[in-house]
């Protein structure tokens, strides 16, 4: 179904061709996983969330009002599942003490190994942000959403979202002060 559009796939599934949903899985599994992994910091939880998102999407596909934008609709489901997961985790687990600021004793990374290491540090630093800040930062700077898109999808004002992103950047700057 390489040439199938998202809308075609949605219509096919709704017409009874369940296999057509595979097109949507192939198309969006990566972006959903990237987001979920950065939000949860745990690949195994992210995989569960992505699977759950697709199953919920499949079950409720008839409620997707704009089949052309089914990708955004599935992403929104994943965003909410991440929120659920983080809320649930916050209630299950005692929050660990804030770790020491993440510092590297060098300037800008030069080698691929150093770059991989600094990316690992950034990944860890992202987990130090509040859930709210991490969500806003990831959507803005990893997924490349506009503030208007974020406001529509997250039911928050543009100014509130800007504030979250600004604070996220400032905190990352503190956490990774020797990187920059």
């Amino acid at each position: 179904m390489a040439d199938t559009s998202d809308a075609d796939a949605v219509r096919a599934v709704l017409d009874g061709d369940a296999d057509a949903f595979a097109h949507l899985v192939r198309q969006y599994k990566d972006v959903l996983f990237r987001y979920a992994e950065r939000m949860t910091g745990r690949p195994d939880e992210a995989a569960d969330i992505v699977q759950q998102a697709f199953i919920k999407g499949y079950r409720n596909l008839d409620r997707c009002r704009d089949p052309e934008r089914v990708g955004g609709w599935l992403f929104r489901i994943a965003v909410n599942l991440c929120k659920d997961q983080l809320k649930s985790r916050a209630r299950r687990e005692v929050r660990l003490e804030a770790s020491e600021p993440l510092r590297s004793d060098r300037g800008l990374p030069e080698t691929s190994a150093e770059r991989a290491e600094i990316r690992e540090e950034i990944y860890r630093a992202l987990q130090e942000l509040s859930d709210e800040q991490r969500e806003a930062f990831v959507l803005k700077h990893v997924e490349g959403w506009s503030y208007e898109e974020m406001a529509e999808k997250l039911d928050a004002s543009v100014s509130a979202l800007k504030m979250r992103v600004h604070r996220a950047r400032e905190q990352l700057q503190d956490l990774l002060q020797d990187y920059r």
Partner: protein
Amino acid sequence: MNQDLQKYLDGEIGLDALPAELQSEARAWEAFLVDAREAGAPGAPVGLESRILRGLEQESRVGWWARLTDWWLHPQPLRVRPAAWVAAAAIAGLLLVPLLTGDRSRDDGLAGGSTDGAVYVQFLLEAPHASSVAIAGDFNSWLPDIGLVDPDGDGIWSGRVPLRPGVHEYMFVIDGTQWLSDPLAERFKEDGFGHRNSVLAITSGAGAASLVP
């Protein structure tokens, strides 16, 4: 952080609008954001696609009847109050009292875990444009998989849920995506995502329970 730099990173102004001393910092931030985009897995791990497809295959085999049975056998707490329905809150209270589980041995037809000490709470929500309404809270791990029903199509969604005595936080979820606080809840708590959870406290006395606003 410098406000002009924030504006640049927000895409509101160009690099040229920044003073020279900030331009180098802006470039460093751009490099950082590239690394931030690359931090973490680039995509789904090998095997996830086939795992999802297997799950979907099983899902289509299970069918609606099995899902309905599963929903029935795993009841979740439901409590919904419509925005303009002060009266509904009173009704909910009235329904609550006779539904208190004074007789622990009574089989109430609900499975999915012990309901010892539970109080059955009637939830109501006016959502005339909703296709589905669910409730999520600390009592069901914040998974919005407890559906309310609107059998007569009047836009009033309802359901009853066994809740143990204690303080519970919850929200309603409309159409699987829109999270909504209970408009008539007496107490709220910030959820850390810019919304407010509704808070419901239930105390248990000797052989009876009561709602505490």
